[in-house]
């Protein structure tokens, strides 16, 4: 059956090459390329007094050494500030190689090119950089003092400051509303740094073709089209002479949306200059200290509420640590500030954030992108309200939910895409009842009591979120049926393991009525599709999925027109099934899509038997009309774009049962339940996989992962030995249930699913630990030793 592919748990088409070792990741390419390596700053803040490269010159196999001084105009300029915002008054970006000052450990200072990576690293190790130390600024609260500055010309280390305020329906400001409320609570929350940490690091490989003056760049990126534009601009090349390809990418999770990385400019530049292929593949330490982190915030909350727990006023002040540079603007704190509201209607809301420079690795989106922090804030607030009033935690949430009849619901804020934060659809009360059922919320108190009788401590927690997905501006799709009946689909955004080749093939096959195995999909290759934005913000299925559906519909319409003519039938009587166009109810009258493709392209020259049918003497044709009519194009293909008015809002709720060890304070997750609503499901198997992976990253963030900087700005745990990414032994079995409230905003009715799993996990675990222990948890992650300390601090 070809028509039922949408919604089916179809096996992934990318798997075969990946399980046989035939994937093509960045470092699998360019066998004979020269290797680049970088001398990186060992200091968090220092002035460069001099660079002595003479030691490196002894290394056999050395090809070139470059410092900032060696770079030409364009290449030597600061990297672009990708997302400007009026509130980002003091945006700063790095130079591709440090000029004068280094601002975090790991900042690139010298680039070395040699015959292979070993030799490049030998040479890099022999280069001496003379530094004059400057006082490093580490930690948000030290930074806001403004005593020492990360950038001399940024007073108070404040890069951006933004206030958004939504008054109550009665016109009261949030602070007023809080003060006037029957109950008021004020508290502080702390969130640590973590990072995307894909198992494949970044990497770039460039080939310059001196004969036709063109450049091909492979990059392990989440946006090949935008890398292409950046590289062309930096190197002064005409855009058509540059092509960028994202090969198989070993995970992204946000970090690879940043571009152009210094290496993405320098490696192609060196390849051009040297006339040789050059490649750089990041090592693990480089990834820790030279790419990007996320999450760190301090939040100050004041909330006013009534006896039912309804929030009348919420006033949140956020200090956001954005590290040394702001290439990705203030997207992360904007998302925290707006998505904090979750599924709730809040009386009056005021949110203020300051985005602060520190001498640490820059902060850019990591899966969830500011939402885990926002949800932590709101859900911890809900739990505090419940505790204060002695109400069930689910009752407080239910009292605040936006109701199913209230959509579209305008939260009155401006979202990360510059458009109003208007929720399109959802059913939060239903989600909550499904979650309570799934985890057994109402029966838990008895289980807890029974466990307590055996000396065991159990706790339950939940958290809710709303996620704006599928942000614009647009994506496009191209669908072509060739004369062999195969269907070639391409879209410009990239893949990092989400299964796009499968879901996009499902969409195209369903729309066109062809068997899945006839469809092939290419993503992230600018040779095939040049216009795209990229893969982030859970947008691929929404954006490219819809664009491909629209393109396929164009192809279908054209196929029906051509087939109708050939079959002398009315196009409205035709259907396509299994790659064959037929007259409904007349099995004899049919024509294959392959033949339609042949007929769609009037030929002078026959290249095979089938093609003869389209040549000029092949059959009757109207002599009054041109072979290709006005407004038509040869070929059975179509291109279309999907550009939404605004984001579509997915939602979900998670709950967990944890057990804490009374002696060791070890925290074990006994059960983990997810109710997830991402609109219509294209492939439930893949959506579940996304949820599992997201929850695992969330568990890492809730219990294990943090970036440990010392006072000198040294990252103390920059390896997998010390940064505790969870293994299978740490991750619970995830039980899932799906609710499908279609999005009214797009033709497929889908919403994004990529990030959802990670978003509420820290809030859920904090709530469950709190319930088990009876101790307030106000920071994430929480380790056994921290829980132990908390117990001691709160012991009577």
């Amino acid at each position, binding site marked *: 059956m070809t028509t039922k592919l949408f919604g089916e748990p179809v096996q*992934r088409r990318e798997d075969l090459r990946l399980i046989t070792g035939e994937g093509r990741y960045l470092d699998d390419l360019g066998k004979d390329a020269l290797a680049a390596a970088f001398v990186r700053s060992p200091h968090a803040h220092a002035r460069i007094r001099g660079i002595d490269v003479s030691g490196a010159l002894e290394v056999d196999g050395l090809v070139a050494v470059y410092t900032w001084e060696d770079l030409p105009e364009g290449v030597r300029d600061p990297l672009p500030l990708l997302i400007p915002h009026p509130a980002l008054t003091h945006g700063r970006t790095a130079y591709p190689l440090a000029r004068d000052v280094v601002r975090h450990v790991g900042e690139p200072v010298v680039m070395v090119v040699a015959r292979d990576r070993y030799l490049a690293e030998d040479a890099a190790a022999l280069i001496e950089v003379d530094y004059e130390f400057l006082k490093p600024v580490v930690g948000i609260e030290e930074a806001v003092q403004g005593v020492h500055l990360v950038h001399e010309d940024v007073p108070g280390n404040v890069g951006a400051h933004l206030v958004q305020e939504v008054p109550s329906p009665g016109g009261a400001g949030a602070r007023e509303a809080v003060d006037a409320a029957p109950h008021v609570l004020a508290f502080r929350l702390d969130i640590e740094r973590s990072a995307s940490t894909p198992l494949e690091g970044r990497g770039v490989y460039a080939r310059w073709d001196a004969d036709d003056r063109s450049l091909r760049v492979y990059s392990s990126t989440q946006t090949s089209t935008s890398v292409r534009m950046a590289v062309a601009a930096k190197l002064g090349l005409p855009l058509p002479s540059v092509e960028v390809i994202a090969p198989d990418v070993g995970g992204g999770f946000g970090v690879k949306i940043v571009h152009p990385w210094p290496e993405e400019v320098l490696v192609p530049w060196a390849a051009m200059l040297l006339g040789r292929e050059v490649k750089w593949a990041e090592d693990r330490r480089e990834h820790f200290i030279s790419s990007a982190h996320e999450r760190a915030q301090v939040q100050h909350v004041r909330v006013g509420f009534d006896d039912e727990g309804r929030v009348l006023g919420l006033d949140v002040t956020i200090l956001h640590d954005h590290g040394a540079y702001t290439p990705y603007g203030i997207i992360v704190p904007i998302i925290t500030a707006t998505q904090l509201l979750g599924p709730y209607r809040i009386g009056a809301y005021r949110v203020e954030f300051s985005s602060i420079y520190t001498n640490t690795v820059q902060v850019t989106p990591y899966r969830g992108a500011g939402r885990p922090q926002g949800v932590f804030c709101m859900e911890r607030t809900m739990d505090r309200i419940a505790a204060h009033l002695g109400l069930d935690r689910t009752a407080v949430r239910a009292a605040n939910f936006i109701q199913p009849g209230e959509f579209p619901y305008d939260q009155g804020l401006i979202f990360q895409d510059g458009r109003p934060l208007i929720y399109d659809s959802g059913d939060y009360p239903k989600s909550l009842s499904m979650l309570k059922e799934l985890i057994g919320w109402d029966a838990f108190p008895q289980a807890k009591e029974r466990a307590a009788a055996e000396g065991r401590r159990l706790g339950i927690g939940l958290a809710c979120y709303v996620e704006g997905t599928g942000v614009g501006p647009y994506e496009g799709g191209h669908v072509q049926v060739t004369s062999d009946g195969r269907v070639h689909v391409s879209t410009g955004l990239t893949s990092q393991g989400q299964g796009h080749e499968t879901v996009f093939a499902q969409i195209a096959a369903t729309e066109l009525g062809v068997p899945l195995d006839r469809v092939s999909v290419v993503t992230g290759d600018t040779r095939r599709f040049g216009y795209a934005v990229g893969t982030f913000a859970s947008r691929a299925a929404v954006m490219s999925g819809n664009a491909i559906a629209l393109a396929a519909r164009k192809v279908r319409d054209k196929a029906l027109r051509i087939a109708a003519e050939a079959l002398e039938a009315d196009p409205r009587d035709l259907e396509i099934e299994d790659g064959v166009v037929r007259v409904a109810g007349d099995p004899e009258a049919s024509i294959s899509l392959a033949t339609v493709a042949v007929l769609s392209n009037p030929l002078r020259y026959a290249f095979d038997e089938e093609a003869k049918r389209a040549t000029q003497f092949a059959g009757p044709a109207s002599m009054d009309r041109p072979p290709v009519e006005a407004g038509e194009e040869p070929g059975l293909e179509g291109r279309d774009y999907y550009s939404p008015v605004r984001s579509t809002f997915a939602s979900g709720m998670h709950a967990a049962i944890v057990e804490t060890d009374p002696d060791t304070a070890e925290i074990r997750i006994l059960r983990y339940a997810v109710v997830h609503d991402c609109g219509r499901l294209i492939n439930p198997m893949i959506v579940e996989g996304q949820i599992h*992976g997201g929850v*695992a990253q969330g568990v890492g963030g809730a219990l294990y992962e943090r970036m440990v900087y010392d006072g000198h700005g040294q990252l103390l745990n920059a390896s997998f030995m010390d940064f505790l990414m969870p293994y299978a032994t740490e991750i619970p079995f995830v039980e899932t249930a799906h609710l499908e409230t279609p999005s009214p905003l797009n033709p497929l009715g889908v919403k994004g699913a990529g990030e959802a799993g990670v978003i509420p996990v820290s809030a859920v675990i904090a709530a469950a630990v709190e319930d088990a222990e009876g101790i307030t948890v106000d920071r994430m992650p929480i380790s056994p030793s921290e829980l132990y300390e908390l117990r001691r601090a709160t012991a009577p």
Partner: protein
Amino acid sequence: MGEKLHEIRLTVNGVPRETRVPGRRLLSDCLRHDLGLTGTHVGCEHGVCGCCTVLLDGEPVRSCLTFAVTVDGREITTVEGLREPDGSLSPVQRAFSESHALQCGFCTPGFLCTVTALLRDNPAPSDDEVVEGISGNLCRCTGYQNIVKAVHRASELMGEAEGRS
């Protein structure tokens, strides 16, 4: 002055191979860059992630922690050599695909080699034994749930093939 090179002979995926490597060449680099077997991945080069796991005389080892010269004369199986003799997918490979046990696929070759050895030694492992058996391999994408499922599924497929119930 170039580095001193050592001649080594390996049997890789059943094929005798010869190459010349410096003493410091990692087995992972030798396999990937000298022998062109890029299916073996490196995710950390410090022995923690398990992406680089290959079978050395049948036993899983981290090729990033192994110097190529130290395995002269030994037999190595990489992900490229896991197919059945007739070229079809092995039960472990099939089970990983069927169970959606991979997303980006970067960790997958290491898991496949690890699990192949695990099931050879323990054809019907319990849940705990599976988790224990894969607890030296990191995956950032899948949350492991479907990998655990795939190991059980592979065990089932192997059982079917051997007529075990």
